[in-house]
């Protein structure tokens, strides 16, 4: 839709030192061929850019740090002017005693953690990749990680948003109080909309006190033993904060599986949970991490996928783990990959690299995996995959219904935002 000069018309609204073009732009976008990357510094600038894009018919792609712009096939593979909110990183409001914070969407994860830590607080969002990006990017992706069993998913902890819609309207929705039912919940609609409805410019979130104790038990064994331990953890009534099962290698050596159980609470409570859980499982853990060691371990895990060329996500109810795990192992086998499964949430992730000659085969396996997982009411999505594989297997199953289409055209009537409905 865009003409050759249209991106330039949008780009010229910002001073040259806040515009990337050519190779620099593509490099910033993780190799994606984009026409420019723009760095507005306030909401008014974002609004001006979006309005100009509507006037000139320029494709826009909202972004944070551009850490995962190629994911999920939401945005096509090329083109577009990237509007990065990375420079909208002001901390507007932080009242520790209220456990709430309001900041620009571009506030980076590390900076945020550094602000919260001295007050003994945190934002327990461990959605895949969140720690590599921005606050707004995490909200836009609206994911959930293993800790959401304890703290809720990202969508449960966003209190308010400021957004510039696809047609350039400025909306301030929700607020900064923890309970708010005034009007329809547009905050939940924009959370997880992945840049398809507007550019998120400001975010208010609910924070949590960091528990006194952070403990992680690691149980090791073969795959069968791992599944047994995972089952015990899934069905215990003890307050477990998160639990994951990792499988490395092909699964034949007998020691390739570990179940990682995280326990948070007062020191007394956490110690008690650990010892009682070990008794329920009927084995002592191979090791237990405490405090900072446990925290760092999980922080590293939250960017587990890194730059793996294949990242697959299979999700179903937790007791359908036999189905999701069977296919995860099959995919891992064909990609020399690894598996990380969220035991409480039922999400199984695989990362790997496709064999050079095996893309057709991999695509076929993925399609069969999707069919079986969907048969038990689950979903299979490709977070990242070579184009040839994704083109055959499809990024995600199903498609948006009529409601989804109508919502998209309500906020982005000119289809200026490149992102499709997730």
């Amino acid at each position: 839709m865009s003409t050759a000069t249209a991106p330039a018309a949008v780009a010229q609204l910002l001073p040259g030192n806040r515009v990337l073009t050519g190779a620099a732009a593509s490099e910033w976008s993780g190799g994606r061929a984009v026409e420019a990357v723009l760095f507005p510094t306030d909401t008014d600038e974002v609004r001006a850019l979006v309005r100009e894009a509507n006037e000139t018919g320029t494709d826009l792609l909202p972004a944070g740090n551009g850490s995962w712009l190629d994911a999920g096939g939401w945005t096509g593979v090329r083109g577009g002017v990237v509007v990065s909110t990375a420079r909208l990183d002001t901390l507007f409001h932080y009242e520790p005693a209220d456990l709430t914070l309001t900041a620009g969407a571009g506030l980076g994860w590390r900076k945020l953690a550094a602000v919260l830590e001295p007050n003994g607080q945190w934002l327990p969002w461990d959605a895949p990749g969140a720690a590599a990006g921005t606050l707004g990017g995490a909200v836009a992706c609206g994911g959930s990680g293993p800790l959401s069993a304890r703290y809720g998913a990202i969508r449960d902890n966003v209190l308010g948003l400021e957004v510039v819609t696809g047609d350039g309207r400025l909306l301030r929705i929700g607020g900064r109080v923890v309970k708010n039912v005034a009007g329809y919940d547009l905050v939940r609609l924009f959370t997880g909309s992945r840049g398809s409805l507007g550019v998120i410019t400001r975010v208010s979130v609910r924070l949590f006190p960091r528990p006194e104790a952070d403990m992680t038990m690691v149980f090791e064994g073969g795959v069968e033993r791992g599944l047994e331990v995972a089952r015990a953890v899934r069905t215990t009534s003890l307050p477990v904060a998160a639990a994951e099962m990792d499988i490395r290698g092909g699964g034949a050596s007998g020691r390739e599986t570990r179940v990682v159980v995280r326990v948070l609470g007062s020191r007394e409570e956490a110690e008690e949970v650990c010892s009682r859980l070990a008794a329920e499982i009927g084995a002592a853990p191979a090791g237990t991490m405490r405090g900072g060691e446990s925290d760092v371990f999980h922080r590293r895990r939250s960017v587990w996928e890194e730059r793996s060329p294949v990242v697959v996500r299979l999700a179903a109810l937790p007791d359908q783990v036999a189905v999701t795990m069977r296919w995860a192992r099959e995919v891992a086998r064909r990609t020399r990959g690894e598996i990380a499964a969220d035991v409480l949430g039922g999400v199984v992730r695989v990362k790997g690299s496709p064999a050079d000659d095996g893309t057709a085969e991999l695509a076929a396996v993925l399609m069969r995996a999707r069919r079986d997982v969907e048969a038990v009411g689950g979903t299979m999505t490709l977070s990242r995959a070579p184009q040839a594989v994704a083109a055959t297997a499809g990024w995600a199953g199903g498609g948006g219904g009529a409601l989804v289409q109508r919502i998209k055209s309500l906020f982005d009537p000119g289809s200026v935002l490149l992102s499709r409905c997730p």
Partner: protein
Amino acid sequence: MIPDTLTRSLAEICGPGGVIVDEDRLLVYESDALTAYRHRPGAVVLPRTTAEVQGAVTAIARHGLPIVPRGAGTGLSGGAVALDGAVVVGTARMNRILEIDAANRRAVLQPGVINAELSAAARPHGLYYAPDPSSQTACTIGGNVAENSGGPHCLKYGVTSRYVTGLTVVLPDGSVAKLGGRGREAPGYDLVGLFVGSEGCFGIATEIEVGLLPLPEGVRTLLGIFDRIEDAGRAVSDIVSAGLLPAAMEIIDGPTIRAVEDSVFAAGYPTDAEAALVIEFDGLEAGLDGETARAAEFCRRAGAREVRRARDEAERMALWKGRKKAFGAMGRIAPDLLVQDATVPRTTLPAILKGISEIGKRYDLVVANVFHAGDGNLHPNILFDRRDEDELERVERASKEIMQLCVDSGGTITGEHGVGLDKKHHMPLIYGAAELDAMWGVRRVFDPSGVMNPGKVLPEETAPGWPGHGEGRGAAEGEGAGVAEPAVAAMAPP
């Protein structure tokens, strides 16, 4: 009254006992628990299944009548009131729990299931449903979904929207939409989250999937008695800042204490106190005593004259009694009661409480506070007699000032009761034209012709081109023409 042809087709669709047109029986459906708003519906239809809801919605819409979903009618914002002879679609006969899936800690149920009955049914599996509105023995899960209800224990566990994972919805055009379901991983826009809190304006929820939690092993309950309500507010703020996360923190103020102690619900709270603070911790037995002791210490430091601790379940019930029976007790000392529902940032509680009490004094009114303090969710209740016109006017002015005070502190106009009829004209206090316009737009996505619960949530004068402005049809039109808005919304003793 509705046309005979519609009565006949509804009776055909919903079977015996499925349609109410008798004027006397319709009386019951005149209002919800906010009894100031009374409007007799044209009819009430009581379907049993999703298919019957579809049939009823289609038939009603064909006759051009508006539709109002209704659960138990315990709402406190006039949400289930039928304006302009609308037809009420009640969920009273949709009260089956369809599945308790203990392995995945979830349940699937019809919308008319009573909140407390779900927890009772989950109990044998060692599970329960966390959101616990104080009305939980009467209100329905469908109503909870529509209002995004909270409750005392939502401080630790979060409100309804956190627990709803899937919905089957009959849309105003009679079609069925399945949103989310089978866990919390559904891809795409969060339409479940968008529907929760839509106050019956987007469609009728006919099947609801929710998450359940394991029952906590132990509970500890404290009662702090304070001479100044600000001190109780400070204790709440200090406890949270210290990193403690109680399951519940509820404040009952002096006027409420005296109302309770004067009534049959007397709970043994000292009548000269200005605030009682109920604090509850739950979880594993280990660690509970330590947390409780720390919270007690914060109460003392904030100025509590006395801190009581429940030693057994009977004592625990006694400590809670004053909180739970507060509404009932207040209903006995004044004919009318105005319930507000603002939420403010927790740290502003001491100042806001002081401000509210000053407003009450200035207007010579009794303002009784009983509320979810941990969440900053206030319920200032103004006691009055609507037959006293001068008092009525003072109540109206005071309630506006209180709401403005809360909004100015960074708060919102409703934390859990919803906007409904009652607060729609206050929406512009917190949202501008752009936001209201966006909300109208989303409402139209679900309900293009404006038949679902019209006249609620959004002030009609903010609706660009909404049917009823101009050539339109249905309720919006009649509504502009003359729903008498009571000066003040009064609630009968529940």
